[in-house]
């Protein structure tokens, strides 16, 4: 009878547990320490100070609302009414919003008993419930008001400029003009601008009613006017999205077409010379390593801004990625099928066509279609750098820092575009290679 000494096993097990416990402690501790380092490296404390929360408020409120500007040029007394203060959104001559009353004096009803009256002699009166009436007169570049020394913090008054902010709207008075900003929810003029006869016509009337514009059929006329809407530029937006998808499409499939023959040169099974193999592989690593960002920069110099540059940048980078993936797929090809084809007396071309290609096509297509979706996102970013597509429109809209409703519109469209491409590539994959698991 042998006596088994269990103590070494026990100590071993205990040491293992100790190591595990140490790992359990050290691993999170390292990550925590890294986060602390990054917290200071990124200056997160300073960020809280630098952040401009007013910007955030403007952004959020502007993205789902619009404002109508009522402006009086004080010199001439001329009134103008414009959505977002843009020339393209100006009410035609002689018309004005229904919350404005034009008699001898122009009265603007901001809602909840807030009234602004444009009086002769460059005078303005603002009725604010619970506060009273503010009267102001512009004389040259000076503003005279009835405000005393004690003014609430929602009024900002100097002798050059008076700004009143109420929950119902904002009023600014300077020597040159008096301006009212009245806020409303929704995206105004999204369908038709004022110069379109279809503005304000109910949808049922456009579809089933009599002709609004005697020269045109209602539906075609309405679609044309919507498509050429100068405020929202639906035509340009559609083209921009088309450009972005085009960049992704040309780049992805172009890369796949170039990468496929090269991948044979990089696969051990098909390229007998180690030198060629190695050169091709280094080439793949190089174009992938340079990255789409630098390719974009370099190509933009030669081809100028536009979708072609973006497509080529994606094409070159993905040639490297596809080359690598395809050559790995080629190395994993099953020899038995090729042998089977050879046994029938097939020539090399037939061996490739019927022995190799059917094996790798599912892997290839799955990858290419997956990249099509992810490249749609890349194309948005590349477009912002090289100047093409929806990425450029988005950057421009953000940089002007006022058309937040347009930014919201573009963001919605971009998300929808990516989701549609995701769905489309998934659908195509299922159609072409069946519902197999797209395992990478």
């Amino acid at each position: 009878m042998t006596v088994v000494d269990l103590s070494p096993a026990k100590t071993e097990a205990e040491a293992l547990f100790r190591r595990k416990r140490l790992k359990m402690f050290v691993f999170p501790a390292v990550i925590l320490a890294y986060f602390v380092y990054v917290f200071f490296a990124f200056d997160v404390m300073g960020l809280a100070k630098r952040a401009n929360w007013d910007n955030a408020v403007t952004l959020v409120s502007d993205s789902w609302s619009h404002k109508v500007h009522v402006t009086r040029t004080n010199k001439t007394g001329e009134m103008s009414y414009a959505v977002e203060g843009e020339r393209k959104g100006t009410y035609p001559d002689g018309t004005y919003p229904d919350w404005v009353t034009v008699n001898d004096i122009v009265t603007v009803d901001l809602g909840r008993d807030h009234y602004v009256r444009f009086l002769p002699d460059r005078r303005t009166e603002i009725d604010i419930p619970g506060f009273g009436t503010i009267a102001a007169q512009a004389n040259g570049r000076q503003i005279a008001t009835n405000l005393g020394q004690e003014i609430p913090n929602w009024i900002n008054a100097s002798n050059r400029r008076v700004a009143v902010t109420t929950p119902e709207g904002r009023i600014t008075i300077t020597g040159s003009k008096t301006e009212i900003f009245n806020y409303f929810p929704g995206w105004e003029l999204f369908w038709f601008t004022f110069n379109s006869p279809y503005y304000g016509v109910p949808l049922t009337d456009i579809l089933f009613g009599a002709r609004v514009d005697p020269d045109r059929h209602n539906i075609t006329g309405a679609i044309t006017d919507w498509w050429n809407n100068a405020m929202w530029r639906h035509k340009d937006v559609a083209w921009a999205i088309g450009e972005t998808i085009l960049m992704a499409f040309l780049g992805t499939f172009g890369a796949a077409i170039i990468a496929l023959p090269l991948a044979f040169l990089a696969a051990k099974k098909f390229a007998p010379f180690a030198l060629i193999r190695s050169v091709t592989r280094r080439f793949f690593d190089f174009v992938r390593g340079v990255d789409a960002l630098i390719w974009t920069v370099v190509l933009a110099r030669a081809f100028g801004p536009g979708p072609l540059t973006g497509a080529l940048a994606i094409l070159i980078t993905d040639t490297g990625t596809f080359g690598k993936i395809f050559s790995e797929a080629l190395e994993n090809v099953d020899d038995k099928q090729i042998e089977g084809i050879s046994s029938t007396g097939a020539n090399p071309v037939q061996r490739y066509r019927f022995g190799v290609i059917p094996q790798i096509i599912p892997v290839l297509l799955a990858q290419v279609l997956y990249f099509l979706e992810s490249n749609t996102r890349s194309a948005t970013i590349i477009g912002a750098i090289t100047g093409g597509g929806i990425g450029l429109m988005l950057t421009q809209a953000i940089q002007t820092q006022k058309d937040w409703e347009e930014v919201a519109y573009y963001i919605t469209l971009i998300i929808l575009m990516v989701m549609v491409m995701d769905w489309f590539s998934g659908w195509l994959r299922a159609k072409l290679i069946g519902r197999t698991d797209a395992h990478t």
Partner: protein
Amino acid sequence: MTDASNTGPAAPLGTVQTNYMAQLQRRRLYGGLTLLLFVVLMISGFNVADGRNAGGFWDGLQNIGDYPADVLSEAWAKRADLPALIWKYVPALLETINIAAVSTLIGAAIGLVFSLLSTRGLARWPRLIPLFRRMMDIMRAVPEIVIALVLIFVLGGGPVPAMIAIAIHTAGALGKMFSEVAENADLKPVEGLASTGATWFQKMWYGVLPQVAPNFLSYGLLRFEINIRASAILGFVGAGGLGYELRNSMSWGPGRFDEATAIFILLFSTIVFFDQLSSRYRNRLADGDAI
């Protein structure tokens, strides 16, 4: 019984053959039509892109080497300064890597929670699975640049907007991949833990995570590599790091190409380094997994 399958063998053979040939013909026709459609799409797409581009393809092709040649010749002329310049941009490189690393860690953590919450059999609240899935879909669909630009407007330029933007996208992308892995996890350990009265968190921590950790790590590494590229690109639109420096040095134009070259070199070697590192680790993880 046996001759039931052998009735009338001679005549149908010819029909089978003609049927088969007809089917083959039809398949070839459809294949050919699809190919033709694809070729037409590619060519017309190329023409449209070429037409809407500022410079034409064939003109540009001739000067494609001009810019790299200018940059390289200037950098070569000033090659003595290059090591110093590379050293100068190391902090920017660190920032780019930090953005990628932090966003990968945060994104992976959020993605992990989301993936467990949206996997059948593991979800804490099975009824909410579609909700969490849609949330991941949206996070995945938003390109990083959208969130980055909006956050730059609010928070000002710097690494944090880029980090948040990449983390959100990473959470969505990894969440989906994690969920696909977790779906195949063995539920026996979870049931065992449930029988001891373990909480949901304990079931996930001790029952699921040890099974899926190698795959998660491998996907996480792949994401990190992708995020380095993303963080460099976002720098170009104002989010700090190497991309930001690259844009600045590029806008200076000739005379400062040595700086651009230093940044090119840093970016290229970093991407290649992490690319190789992650593919080596992933191969090792995959090999260990396969046994």
